[in-house]
């Protein structure tokens, strides 16, 4: 099957053969692609090297041929801007340099120098028993990372400032007009309006997402846990030993690696069932409501959608208690005489029953949302497709499998992917329903049987305070999600060009 098939032959295959072909082809081409990737990375760095070399050579040349204003700009950022009446730019450049120097003297230098050791002495106790905290590994790592980002930003702005000085000098020599503050301001609402709009969101993402993620990736290479918890104790670099523990397959039993394998497997099973049960049942309900001759369509729709509106923590927590040991379900069944008081159904204590229950309750939560989405798409299917199918004598079932389903799969392919990865990280449903339980002493730190990786990460952080292992789990979640996205994205028929949409 996995051979090169021409476009004509491809048309002759049915949908499943085509999928199979794409699937096998992906893995057949994978080694080549990976090799290609490395070649590309190599080329990228080679180009980067050449370009940076050139860039700095230009800066050196600029210095040699520069006037005194240009040369001084190499030291005092924005000086050339001041002498060319670009006061706003000058203030920004010089201000950033001053801020950088102050930051380095007060915080940066000290933390950066200790980044290698993450601190030497955690606390000192003097003769009177008074404790003073000295080094805090957490802060050292945090401000160390921050300082690295700051230095990168400084290098960038410095080269920008020098480049502007060189440009200004050139424009002077050619007697051309230099941009004034007024021009700059006008550009910011017109040609460069995107810079204005991006400034705040970009800074927000950098400070509250990028830097924290870099920090946590670094934490996964330390021994930051409750025995090494600043400010009482220091933590230090341990290299890749956390990851070594994760891939230590011989450990077995209640080891970290065996538990990780089991939880990963359940996470994938859960994501599969959660995604597709909602998808197909949601589609079914949508078709039912939109069927010809069904009245009060809006009422049915609104009834279902109510479940989406009510905050999940209320609906899920309430349902979780409903199915509890002494909850409404058990009590009602006892009242009806179906079970006895000694014979209750333990929805959350039996691991397998708990797994089935969370998947079923997830249908209750997810189907209305899918129903809404599908309804919108159903209305977009060209009606003449159905008409011609009817004329050709296709039954409703045939129409569904030949028109509705292919169209839906094509349009919602990307949605299915995001929904699958979203379910891998579906914290709310699991945590609010079962809390990850029932816990199993045969797992690492008695982890719960219905834990997803994400809820396991949460309990590892909050209950065990094992931040390093939590960071390892987080990085692994990223790798799993990225791998699945990469594979599925290559298989999707609807990889459309975004420019086509407009």
């Amino acid at each position, binding site marked *: 099957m996995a051979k090169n098939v021409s476009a004509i032959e491809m048309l002759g295959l049915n949908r499943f053969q085509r999928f199979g072909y794409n699937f096998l082809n992906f893995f057949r081409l994978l080694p080549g692609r990976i090799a290609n990737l490395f070649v590309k990375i190599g080329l990228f760095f080679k180009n980067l090297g050449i370009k940076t070399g050139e860039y700095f050579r230009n800066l050196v040349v600029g210095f040699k041929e520069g006037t005194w204003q240009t040369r001084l700009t190499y030291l005092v950022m924005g000086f050339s801007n001041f002498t060319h009446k670009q006061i706003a730019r000058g203030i920004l450049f010089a201000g950033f340099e001053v801020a950088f120097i102050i930051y380095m003297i007060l915080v940066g230098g000290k933390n950066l120098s200790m980044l290698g050791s993450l601190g030497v002495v955690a606390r000192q106790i003097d003769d009177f028993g008074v404790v003073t905290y000295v080094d805090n590994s957490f802060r050292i790592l945090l401000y160390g990372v921050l300082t690295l980002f700051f230095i990168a930003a400084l290098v960038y702005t410095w080269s920008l400032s020098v480049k502007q000085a060189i440009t200004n000098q050139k424009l002077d020599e050619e007697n051309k007009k230099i941009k004034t503050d007024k021009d700059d301001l006008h550009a910011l609402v017109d040609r460069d309006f995107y810079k204005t709009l991006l400034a705040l969101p970009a800074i927000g*993402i950098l400070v509250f997402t990028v830097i924290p993620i870099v920090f946590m990736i670094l934490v996964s290479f330390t021994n930051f846990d409750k025995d090494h918890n600043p400010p009482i104790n220091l933590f230090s670099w341990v290299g890749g030993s956390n990851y070594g523990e994760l891939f230590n397959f011989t450990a077995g039993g209640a080891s970290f690696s065996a538990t990780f394998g089991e939880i990963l497997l359940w996470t994938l099973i859960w994501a599969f069932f959660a995604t597709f049960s909602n998808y197909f049942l949601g589609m079914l309900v949508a078709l039912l409501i939109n069927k010809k001759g069904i009245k009060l369509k809006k009422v049915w729709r609104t009834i279902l959608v109510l479940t989406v509106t009510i905050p999940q923590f209320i609906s899920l927590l309430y349902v979780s208690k409903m199915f509890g040991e002494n909850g409404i379900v058990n009590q009602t069944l006892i009242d009806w005489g179906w079970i006895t008081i000694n014979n209750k159904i333990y929805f959350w204590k039996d691991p397998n029953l708990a797994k089935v229950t969370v998947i079923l309750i997830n249908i209750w939560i997810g189907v209305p949302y899918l129903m809404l989405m599908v309804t919108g798409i159903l209305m977009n299917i060209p009606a003449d497709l159905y008409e011609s199918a009817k004329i050709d*004598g296709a039954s409703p079932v045939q129409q569904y499998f030949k028109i509705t389903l292919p169209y839906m799969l094509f349009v919602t392919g990307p949605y299915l992917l995001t929904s699958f990865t979203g379910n891998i990280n579906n914290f709310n449903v699991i945590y609010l329903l079962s809390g990850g339980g029932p816990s199993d002493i045969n797992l690492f730190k008695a982890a719960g049987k219905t834990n997803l990786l994400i809820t396991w990460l949460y309990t590892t952080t909050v209950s065990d305070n094992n931040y390093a292992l939590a960071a390892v789990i987080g990085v692994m979640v*990223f790798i799993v999600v990225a791998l699945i996205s990469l594979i599925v994205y290559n298989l999707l028929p609807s990889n459309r060009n975004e420019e086509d949409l407009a």
Partner: protein
Amino acid sequence: MADNNTNRKPTPMEALEAENQKNGMGLKARRRIGNAVSYVVLILISIVWLAPFVFLIFQSFEVSSTGWSSRVWPKQWGFDNYVYLFSANANFNRWYFNTFIIALFCCIGQTLMQIAMAYVLSRFRFKMRKPLMNFMLILGMFPGFLTMIILYTVLKDLGMTGANAVPGLILVSIASSGMGYYVIKGFFDTVSKSLDEAAMIDGATRAQVFIKVILPLTKPIIIYAILTSFMAPWGDFIFASYIAFGNPNGYNVAVGLYEWLGTEQISYHYTHFCAGGVVVSIPVIVLFLMLQRYYVEGVTGGAVKG
């Protein structure tokens, strides 16, 4: 002429014709039966989907027990649970107010961030555009809780934890919200670029195009963004509980009500939780029903274009 070989299977075409004839004979009757079955299924579905909420409402009026109740139909009806919610003993007022403030700021801040991001990525073509989009896509693959402890420490340094958790929560949820631009960008992409060009030929700056042309045309999706970002904080639970760190003054409703169902408090607070759930749901449901049209449009658009 007659087919004397009875073992021969009918060809697909023949089978189809036979099926059509069958349909033709009892078409009306069949449709009526089909509809009846559909109605029965729809009614069953509605019962299953609504039952927990009806139970929740019933139990919120239970006053005979002091807390836990495992019966749907209250033994004795009354408003005691609601009275308790708004009494001085419970912190519920405070939690409700906190959540409202968070929701208000979030729906303004997040919407602005997302609109800005979406507009830039939809309308401008600059060198860093593709790398930026890919970068945000990759960032989105990291689980959000990964960064919880570091954000907590930073907020603690800023004095925004414990009783002051509300500004901290607002800050964190607005700061990175630019990454959720997908749905809005998808909608912006469908607005023809010739409109922008026409306005610019008439001498409008990019900023004017944005405010005077694009925003009015994309009102539905902006209402969708406001609606979803207003509704989200009512259910925000994990990060809120981590930041409030056991200080009831900094809770939002989700954290507070979750605590009421903890093993120590559930026997006293269960019916209060039910009443609280009803009180929290009402404004969200009313808002939703008012703006349902926009929500549906956003959900559908997001799936197709996102």
